[in-house]
């Protein structure tokens, strides 16, 4: 297993280098200019100076090399310094990836936005899983029962109706008509006591549930078919022939087997949490990573887009490995070496 992981990690390096090159090159080709957004009154010399300060006059490969150094050496060092409160070398000399739009280091902005996304999108993912699994299991076990029929209908609705629709619907219903919940997520809100905790719950519940509904719809279908696949297998008949109670047949024998593909799918879905549910974040004004990416794209903030895109790529490659490893752990027949 360790060997396998090592090998996969070694293979991940060239993959990521290739991805970073493509990301950097593609965005570099995009016609954009950090001074483009500046007022027209600014004289050309000043613009040139600004460009020079971003290192934009260097040849492409030099800029790519610098970006790689910033991304893989400088920023990780900064993070370590922050985490442990130490100073490694001359940290003020280290140049960083700077956002065109805000002129502050990209990584700092991302770190600032991360918690919102993790809370809202992450929580919705967890809630979605908790809803989906039991529904999937019961639907499969009682195939074609009214529970299954209703479940099928609701999940069809769940993943065919986009979140911007369900989100708006929820806002109209609960914020505008019933006035129970706030329609905007206030990121500056701090939980200090029971009262503020209640406020936090009220503002988080709508985005979380809208996203959870969407996730659960897909996952419960997947769980259902996985359980169904297993219910008809020979070993289930063996378990019954041994005189096992139905509970044990379902929860020990069938569940263990049908969780294998489901867990893999859940792991593969985790990077999308970090991608932030872009649309949902926009609707509920959660200023998380998804929103950050949208704004950066609109503002042609190339360093920001490059960094975010590449971060997602790393996460996807990483969680692919996690999914494979989980698969190997759950299924004793798979042996990695």
């Amino acid at each position, binding site marked *: 297993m360790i060997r396998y992981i090592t090998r996969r990690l070694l293979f991940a390096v060239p993959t990521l280098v290739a991805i970073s090159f493509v990301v950097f090159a593609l965005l570099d080709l995009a016609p954009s200019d950090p001074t483009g957004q500046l007022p027209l009154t600014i004289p050309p010399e000043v613009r040139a100076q600004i460009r020079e300060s971003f290192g934009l006059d260097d040849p492409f490969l030099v800029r790519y090399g610098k970006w790689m150094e910033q991304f893989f050496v400088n920023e990780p060092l900064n993070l370590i310094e922050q985490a442990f409160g130490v100073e490694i070398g001359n940290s003020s000399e280290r140049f960083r990836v700077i956002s065109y739009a805000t002129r502050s280091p990209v990584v700092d902005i991302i770190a600032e936005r991360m918690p919102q996304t993790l809370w809202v999108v992450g929580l919705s993912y967890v809630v979605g899983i908790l809803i989906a699994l039991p529904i999937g299991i019961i639907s499969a076990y009682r195939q074609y029962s009214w529970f299954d029929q209703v479940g099928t209908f609701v999940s069809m609705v769940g993943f065919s109706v986009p979140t911007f629709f369900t989100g708006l619907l929820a806002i109209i219903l609960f914020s505008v008509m019933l006035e129970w919940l706030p329609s905007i997520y206030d990121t500056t809100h701090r939980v200090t006591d029971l009262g503020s905790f209640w406020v936090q719950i009220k503002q988080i519940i709508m985005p979380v549930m809208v996203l959870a509904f969407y996730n659960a719809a897909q996952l419960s279908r997947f769980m259902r078919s996985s359980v169904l696949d297993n219910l008809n297998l*020979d070993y289930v008949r063996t378990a019954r022939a041994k*005189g096992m*109670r139905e509970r044990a047949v379902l929860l020990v*024998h069938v569940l263990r*087997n049908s969780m294998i593909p489901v867990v893999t799918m859940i792991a593969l879905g985790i990077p999308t949490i970090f991608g932030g549910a872009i649309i949902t974040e926009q609707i509920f004004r959660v200023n998380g990573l998804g929103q950050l990416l949208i704004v950066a794209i609109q503002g042609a903030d190339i360093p920001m887009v490059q960094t975010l895109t590449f971060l997602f790529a790393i996460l996807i490659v990483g969680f692919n490995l996690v999914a494979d490893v989980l698969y190997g752990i759950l299924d004793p027949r798979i042996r990695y070496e």
Partner: protein
Amino acid sequence: MRATTATDAVLAVEDVRTRFHTQEGVVHAVNGIGFELAEGEVLGVVGESGSGKSVTMLSLLGLLPAPPAEIVSGTAKLEGEDLMALDADRLRQVRGARVGFIFQDPMTSLNPVLTVGYQLTEPLRVHLGMDKAAARKRAAQLLSLVGIPEPTRRLGDFPHQFSGGMRQRVMIAIALACSPKVLIADEPTTALDVTIQAQILDVVKRLQRELGMSIIWITHDLGVVAGLADRVMVTSSVPTCSPCTRDRNIPIRGACCARCRTPIPGMDRPNGGSRASRDILRVSCRRQRLVRSRPAASMRSSVAVAKTRRSRPFTRDTRWPASTTSMPEPPVQSDSTATNTPVRSGSGATAAPVLVEVENLTKHFPIMHGVFRRQVGSVRAVDGIDFQIHERETLGLVGESGCGKSTAGRVILRLYDPTAGRIAFRGQDIGGVRGESLRRLRQSMQMVFQDPQDSLNPRMTVGSIVGEPLVEHGVAKGRALDERVDELLDAVGLSPRFANRYPHEFSGGQRQRIGIARALALEPEFIVCDEPIAALDVSIQAQVVNLLQDLQERLGLTYLFISHDLGMVRHIADRVAVMYLGKIVELAPSEKLYRGPLHPYTRALMSAAPAHDPELEARRERIILTGDVPSPADPPSGCRFSTRCPIATHECSVREPEWRELRPGHRVACHYAGDA
């Protein structure tokens, strides 16, 4: 007062009727089956697949999926208590405790993600209320009872870490965990190799003696129950007569019943047997009260029935009586069953020129390992074999699964590149040909595969499947193509009308005919048949083999016939090669080999294949090989067979026996062959 029969019967079953509600309508799978099982008795249940054997037993214990199955009627008194009237929970308490079950496929009937120990302790804990420690102790005892070495350590292993035979032993241990009164075994050895089957039969016989439970043994192979069962019941899907019961003192000669009149070729009866040996059982064959409405077999498509007349010309001189048993491919020629063919060219067709010759043929598959996928070893699938196949001859290649039969066939056809050795076709070395010349070569060498289901593209019509090689090689197109396809379908006994249909509309036997037609398309001289009948029902096997023989005669074909079934090979092959772990251990003309096998492995194989004559079965000594086939990645030193050979000496494990011609035309690789 209870009826006398019920008192001494452990299990009395009466009038079981089960049907399935399917999309095509109601299938009456079981139509009023009844039988009794006495204390300590072994009841064999024999019948073709689909005749309702499994469904009957599953019905008794409520193990059928509720829709689509419906149990219409029936009683099953286990020690006087009617199982079929019990509620779900009471019935659950019977299952596993008083009735144990063993299923057909040991590969799928154990849960892959739970340890064997867990699966074995489950019934002990549920039915006997044992605690964890006690259950583990008992589980280890059970494993050693069924002959698994190091039982305590193996409790922590997962099913995939056991071989097929070992898994079936585990299944037996599970079924016996709570000392049931009745053990129901549903084709428990069908999926196993013959030598492993012999081991399992041996274990069951021993356990039955020691524990004295009653056994219901379901099988489609009469030979298997011949040596084991006290009585045999035959099930049939056609409502004429079933079941027949018989006593042990009446020999089972051939199969039984009006429907199952066809004897099955076995070790003891090369060509279906003489008239005497095919005597139909004189048995008390009481007519059953059967529902006529829609027996299971009539559900099969009318396609099959329409085909009957077409296939007639090709079975003129039926060497091996074609079956009269099956609906899908009905009687080909029922009156010629008595004709007995003279034994085929006894000493092999040595006069004919050599068509295919292999010398030291070797195929190793690399095993990769480590971070950079270095090659750390190799699976020696085929490890230096020599033989010649003469024109118009059939060479049989037999051996247990995994011994390299199929690999050998594929290397000869150059579907794999040989690792070493020489392959000659018509004297020309073809081991290294590539590209265009390989393509041309393929025209004269073709393959028929084992599974007619998997080898036909489901999205292509039969016509395009058969015609594909013609188009590929640019042999025919347009009208000529259509004509040729019709001709080919006709040759294999299918109506040209079927050209527009898809493979799934055909039965297994018909699909195999399609596969044969495709192989014939380019008019090859040489065909490798890789277990062409292993996936088919016994009755249909006969027809496909007859077809192959007929085509051989008419078209002058040469076959390499790969099979694990010795009986079948004896019937079709002129000469037979026996393979073990990548080596050929014995090669001889068919009759010589079967009359006087020289290699200990061949002897064991033959003794493991059950004879269909119970008298013979009872008289003969069985050689039961111990252990499993070693891994071809790490074969034993010296003689490959030395780890399982009953007469191995020290010499055997250090020196590899040479491949020598002991008698004219009879080659063998064993130090001690011919000594005894």
